[in-house]
């Protein structure tokens, strides 16, 4: 009876009225403060994008936003001409591509191992252990990683020679970062693939067994095609976020020697914007990152469409 009434109420479009507001005064009291919070902390910063087109340095900052000198695209031009800019973009893209490729492959492989193994108890325990590092902070991970990978660290002593994983100023550092990232996230990333695998029709496996397909063949012809849509969606999302390599991880894992190959766009925006107090320039770098990200997402989405895959958008 009451449920019926409720659904009827839903259909009737309510008109704004003072009585209705009074009737819902508690609901308003319980939500409006959070909307105010939202506007202050999430929407007002959006307005800050305009700084990309202004000269905003400590000198001009005290001026109200409409009196600051508008400088057109000169912040962007300055950013592109920056000595570090090209290398930073290359680092960001290199890290992303490597991270997506290695991360996806290892997560799928790990999910396959878990999916195939028959020792259920051990499977459960090891899965639980596998996503433990996901919940540990990057600072802790960096502290551990530096102990293990630094010159003369655990891995060096294990191999008996200096591998230079953390002290070679070359793209090798990207590999180091990606490996650390995989160590941290592989268990967590595998969850989504595992649940996709659980959704595959078991009848297919039975049929394949009857036809004499061995385990590898079953994986190749049933499991992998079964999780293909999931892989595509995650890849599109990954490519869309390709430029959004977080500053926290890079900053914590890097050191003075490898900094040239650790710098990524978000960090660069921080260094130029806040470190050098050139807020307009920093915002322009951040804006470039976001815009290129959107373009990449659209391209990846389109390509997935051409390949006959389900699109994200």
């Amino acid at each position, binding site marked *: 009876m*009451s449920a019926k009434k*409720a659904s009827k109420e839903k259909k009737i479009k309510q008109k704004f009225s003072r009585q209705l*507001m009074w009737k*819902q005064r*508690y*609901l*308003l009291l*319980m*939500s409006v403060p*959070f909307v105010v919070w*939202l*506007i202050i*902390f*999430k929407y*007002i*910063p*959006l*307005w*800050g*994008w305009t*700084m990309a087109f202004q000269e905003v340095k400590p000198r001009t*900052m005290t001026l109200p936003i409409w009196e600051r000198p508008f400088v057109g695209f000169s912040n962007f031009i300055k950013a592109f001409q920056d000595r570090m800019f090209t290398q930073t973009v290359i680092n960001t893209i290199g890290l992303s591509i490597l991270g997506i490729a290695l991360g996806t492959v290892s997560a799928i492989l*790990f999910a396959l*191992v878990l999916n*195939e*193994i028959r*020792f259920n108890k051990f499977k459960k325990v*090891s899965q*639980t*252990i*596998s*996503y*433990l590092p996901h*919940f*540990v*902070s990057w*600072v*802790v991970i*960096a*502290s*551990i990683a530096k*102990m*293990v990978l630094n010159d003369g660290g*655990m891995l060096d*002593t*294990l191999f008996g020679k200096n591998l230079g994983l953390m002290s070679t100023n070359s793209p090798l550092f990207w590999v180091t970062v990606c490996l650390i990232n995989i*160590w941290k996230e592989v*268990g967590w990333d595998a969850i989504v693939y595992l649940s996709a695998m659980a959704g595959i029709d078991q009848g297919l496996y039975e049929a394949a067994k009857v036809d*004499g397909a*061995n*385990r590898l063949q079953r994986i190749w012809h049933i499991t992998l095609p079964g999780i293909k849509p999931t892989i595509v969606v995650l890849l599109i999302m990954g490519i869309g976020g390709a430029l959004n390599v977080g500053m*926290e991880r890079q900053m*914590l894992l890097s050191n003075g020697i490898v900094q040239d190959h650790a710098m990524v766009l978000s960090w660069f*925006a921080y260094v130029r*914007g806040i470190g050098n107090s050139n*807020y307009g320039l920093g*915002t322009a770098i*951040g*804006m470039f990152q*976001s815009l290129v990200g959107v373009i990449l997402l659209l391209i990846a989405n389109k390509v997935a469409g051409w390949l006959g895959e389900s699109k994200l958008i």
Partner: protein
Amino acid sequence: MAKMKGNRIKSHDNIMDWILLVILLLLVIITLYPFLNVLAISLNDPIDTMRNINFIIPRKFTWSNYVYVFTENNLGSAFMLSVARTVIGSVFSVICTAMLAYVLSRKDFYFNKLFTILFVVTMYVSGGLIPEYLLLMRDLKLGNNFLVYLIPGLIWVYNMILVRSFIEGLPIALQEAARVDGANDFIIWLKIVLPLCKPVLATVFLFYAVGQWNSFMDTYLYAKELPTLQYVLYEIMEKAQVKIDPHAAEQLKNAVSPLSIRMAVTIVATVPILIVYPFLQKHFVGGMTVGAVKD
């Protein structure tokens, strides 16, 4: 013939089982070994540690590193600050999230759609680092203020949606009954909805708590004078990269070494996660599915 083939597949499968077991075992070791190594170093005599750092059982057991961590002023207060922001911040966030989630679960609320859209949009667009920095530091003057740990990250929209989906799954009849008895919306939320939401609130609490405990960037950007444990660990790491001067090396004889201290702090920064981990692990799977069902 067919039978033989069947047997061969079976034995082939059996070998596969064992190979998989070995692979998984290796992966578990790779995951756990560094943690155990850190733990062992933190419990080992610092001078003995310098011989070789590759061990997982303390060779010369000592508590001295931990004693140093908790008696050294800076570290003790950082620990307390981390605990404070985790407890206060998470409780505060959970209450606010639950309140908002309840309102947005009410389909009859006039602004339901508008508010929901306003919140969801912020999951996809953001002003970026610098506008946020200027807002917090210059306009709101929250720099080096404890509130900077509580307010900007008050509600995670994802968590709010999780709670909202859960509330929508509750039988509406209870709310209706309370309303007939004359309860207002706030009382219904407090007395009826909240107690029923305990499982999802536990999940969300853990998400917030882990986020608060692990948070590093906000201290780094906004509140270097209010260092949390994570930030102090970062500082120790940075210091270790500077060449240790001979006087410091001299001091090492007093059974304190940067590496051992760092490892002890690393463990202290990890242990709370380990303590809540069984709950985390139990709840987040439930929480995930709650979210998934709705989508």
